[in-house]
């Protein structure tokens, strides 16, 4: 077989043997359309900010999850179903966030835990697991002169966000100069925020605790620690990670 014939035969073989796999075009498109929320993207909506577009997408994903998870809980294959559901989350994606007044594109990586998923900017942070807690902290250790920078995620299964808010507020009052009033928030999560700051220096410790219902009797706790000067850096990045948080119920 000469060279030209050989190349032609290779092409024919590749085409011939992959013809069978071309079905599913519509199915794949429907998945793409759903994931990117394309049906919602009318010309008017395209003018919304990227962040809000993402929020709409997440809200719809969450709504789908609620319906599907309701189904999952009454089937014997519920856990497998949940595992399949997790596949709907992209393993990694790029998000644009505003950090210190400038747009910043980050590649964020999906972290799947037993009961939730979250995206982490792995260029700067890592997630470590200590007992029942997951701690997101800087990839490179900070110098000693900086106060702690971390976001600890945990779940308290027998206390509501309201109950925990009171407890944390009291606890923070023992070590922080200023503890703000407990407030209800809708961003970055739907929940309750307890926040405290200890001074007004560049390195004054800041503690923000977001409390989110776990859908049952308990709460997810997001304990954000950083310092005043890092509010628009680490603080903003933790905030954006929280925007991507999703509960995956068993």
């Amino acid at each position, binding site marked *: 077989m000469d060279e030209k014939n050989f190349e032609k035969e290779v092409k024919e073989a590749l085409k011939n*043997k992959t*013809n*069978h*796999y071309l079905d599913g075009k519509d199915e*794949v498109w429907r998945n793409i359309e759903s*994931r*990117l929320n*394309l049906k919602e993207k009318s010309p008017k909506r395209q003018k919304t900010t990227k962040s809000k577009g993402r929020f709409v997408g997440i809200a719809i994903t969450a709504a789908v999850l609620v319906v599907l998870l309701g189904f999952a809980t009454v089937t014997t294959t519920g856990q497998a179903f949940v595992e399949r559901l997790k596949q709907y989350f992209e393993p990694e994606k790029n998000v644009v966030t505003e950090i210190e007044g400038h747009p910043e594109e980050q590649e964020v990586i999906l972290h799947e835990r037993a009961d939730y998923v979250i995206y982490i900017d792995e260029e700067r942070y890592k997630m470590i697991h200590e007992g029942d807690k997951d701690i997101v902290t800087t990839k490179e250790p900070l110098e000693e002169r900086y106060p702690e920078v971390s976001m600890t995620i945990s779940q308290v299964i027998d206390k509501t966000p309201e109950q925990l808010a009171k407890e944390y507020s009291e606890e923070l009052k023992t070590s922080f100069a200023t503890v703000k009033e407990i407030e209800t928030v809708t961003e970055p999560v739907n929940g309750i925020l307890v926040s405290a700051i200890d001074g007004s220096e560049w390195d004054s410790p800041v503690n923000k605790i977001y409390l989110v219902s776990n859908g049952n009797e308990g709460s997810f706790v997001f304990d954000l620690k950083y310092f005043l000067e890092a509010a628009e850096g680490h603080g903003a990045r933790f905030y954006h990670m929280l925007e991507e948080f999703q509960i995956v119920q068993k």
Partner: protein
Amino acid sequence: MKELEIVQQIKNGDVQAFHDLYDLYFEYAMRVATVVMNHQSSNAKDAVQETFIRVYQNIKGYDTSRPFKPWFYRILINECHRILKRNGKIISVGEGFNKAEQDELAYEGINQFIEHEDLYKAIESLEHHHRVPIVLKYLNGFKEQEIAEILDENLNTIKSRLYKGKQKLKGLLKNEKEGSQDG
């Protein structure tokens, strides 16, 4: 509509243009993913799906002065590798092929299928790093420089892999023929 116009319209937020791109690219993206993913159909679909999603999400960052097709296929190959790596099966060969093979034999022209049987088996049996450049060159018609860019490899590495891949294919076919003559 030309490809560049389509891409420009997607950049401007035109969802219909994105659908046009999907129509234009789905078939060959699926063919390539199928071979790269060793005929694991659902994984190939996942790779194609994730590729289009990534393309849509990152199209604003795409430089229109550069050719679009290699950019697209670079994302596709990366997605294939990511899924293979996740499944821990980057170099398994032919998995999932038997059922597809049987189905195809049942439903399609048997003669045409058999005609390419040896050659395709030989392609399938190539090592991953030889098979992927072969697919990109012969199925998609990419130039060596473009393949190097898609796979993020040195041009000489790609030339060498294509050469060795071809030699192996010819060798495998020759052995196959000799084997069948002996038998």
